[in-house]
């Protein structure tokens, strides 16, 4: 009895092992072939979360059978991923520097589709009662900003130098949405985010202008990647972002248009 039982379980394990190997092989194949449905993968800066989600829906509606996969992260992270050969078709970053970083993975010239500037946001009814940029400049408010490797951090660093802001942030977040999340949760007195993030947060935050911010903007380039599996679809997505419809979506979200 015992030996039969163990034999049976031995066989059982063998079957499981074969099944696992088979499943791995199958997923490996299906990721490559894709069947009828085409998948377009877009890497986009965190600050494009709302607009690109909307544009992806629009693209899918215009192209039946096409699914758009979106990955949002810090532009610097996405640029590195593109450079390392991440399976993606389109890259959209929040500044020219990060696009330049990925230039070896980009096919053709990147095209600028929007620009953005920094604002100060504070929790709508926050504990610190921040009511202007002076609270940050004076060091009274504990504020958060992006880490300097991310475009929002590089922009803030330049702006802080220009405005001679001595007060250091309490934390450097990896992307702008992480900064916004800290502020919305009222875990920070204030945060330095893009004007568009302030719009997307709506009533959760109070927005204040930063002196000199309008003169120091960042531009958003978009490009098709060398490793694109669907270069034609990718080009069509880029065209959609640059089109009248794309501009409307970006404009409504608070981006400035070229």
């Amino acid at each position, binding site marked *: 009895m015992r030996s039969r039982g163990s034999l049976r379980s031995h066989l059982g394990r063998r079957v499981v092992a074969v099944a696992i190997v088979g499943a791995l092989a199958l997923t490996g194949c299906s990721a490559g072939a894709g069947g009828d449905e085409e998948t377009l993968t877009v890497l986009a800066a965190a600050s494009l979360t709302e607009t690109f989600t909307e544009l992806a829906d629009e693209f899918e509606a215009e192209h039946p059978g096409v699914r758009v996969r979106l990955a949002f992260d810090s532009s610097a992270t996405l640029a*590195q991923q593109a450079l390392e050969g991440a399976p993606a078709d389109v890259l959209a970053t929040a500044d020219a520097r990060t696009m330049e970083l990925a230039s070896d993975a980009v096919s053709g010239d990147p095209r600028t589709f929007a620009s953005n500037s920094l604002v100060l946001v504070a929790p709508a009814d926050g504990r610190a009662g921040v009511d202007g940029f002076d609270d940050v400049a004076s060091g009274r408010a504990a504020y958060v900003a992006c*880490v300097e*490797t991310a475009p929002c951090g590089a922009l803030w660093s330049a702006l802080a130098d220009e405005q001679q802001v001595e007060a*250091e942030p309490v*934390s*450097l977040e*990896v992307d702008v949405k992480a900064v916004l999340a800290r502020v919305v*949760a009222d875990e920070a007195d204030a945060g330095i985010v893009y004007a568009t993030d302030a719009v997307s947060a709506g009533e959760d935050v109070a927005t204040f202008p930063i002196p000199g911010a309008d003169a120091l903007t960042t531009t958003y380039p978009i490009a098709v990647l060398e490793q694109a599996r669907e270069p034609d679809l990718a080009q069509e997505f880029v065209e959609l972002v640059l089109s009248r419809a794309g501009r409307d979506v970006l404009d409504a979200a608070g981006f400035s248009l070229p």
Partner: protein
Amino acid sequence: MTSAPSPARTPARAPSLGRPPLLLLVPGSVGAALLVVPLVALLLDTPWSDLGAQLADPAVRDALWLSGLTSALTVALCVLLGTPLAWLLARVDFPGRRLLRGLVAVPLVLPPVVAGVALVAALGRNGLLGGPLHDVTGWTIPYTTTAVVLAHTFVSLPFFVLSVEGALRTAGERFDVVAATLGADRWTTFSRVTLPLALPGVAAGCVLAWARSLGEFGATITFAGNFPGTTQTMPSLIYTTLQADPAAARTLSMLLLVVSIGVLVGLRRRWLVTS
């Protein structure tokens, strides 16, 4: 260890068990390669000449110092809080003991980012405990080195407690009972009999907690934030450096790897000799 082993059992005459079956050999080798190859790749890929320049960078020295400090404080806190907790779980029969033991083990399986979110919910400025604390004292825990140590302790403590509890259970209660019959009170029994017997478990727990703390990233960056000098530990620095300069990130990773392996090897010789 019999004094007179039978001739058939001596190693020279041991019956051969045959070659290892391929069904074990192949996956076993793949597993070993999976663990070893990335480390070898890191070793080969590290621009060693940068190491000096990296070490001279104040941000790197801050992060190294902070990692060392917070992991040491974490181990101290684990010993201080974890030893009594392990003792309670191993020696005192109270209602809900099994439930508590289960709960203590939860952070082991919790994704570190979730641990960070949970810590914000508890100790953040609007948290369950952090809110009242902020109202009464004006203190904010996130963005401080204290927050880093708390996050590290949260993820490391289960390793320590389970290790010590295991040692306490293995040692058994016999000696405690003898000490009690000889007139020792429970504290004396604990400090003079129970604890010394469990010391190997305490040491192993310290090493596990320290290693977990040194590598901790998700809970720290979520709960404590990321700022050089106060909350940016080595893993956070490596993560942010990776965005701008992958080569520098590799050197830093190597640095952390060398430090951790060095300490583990040093401790292994002393404490963790496997039988």
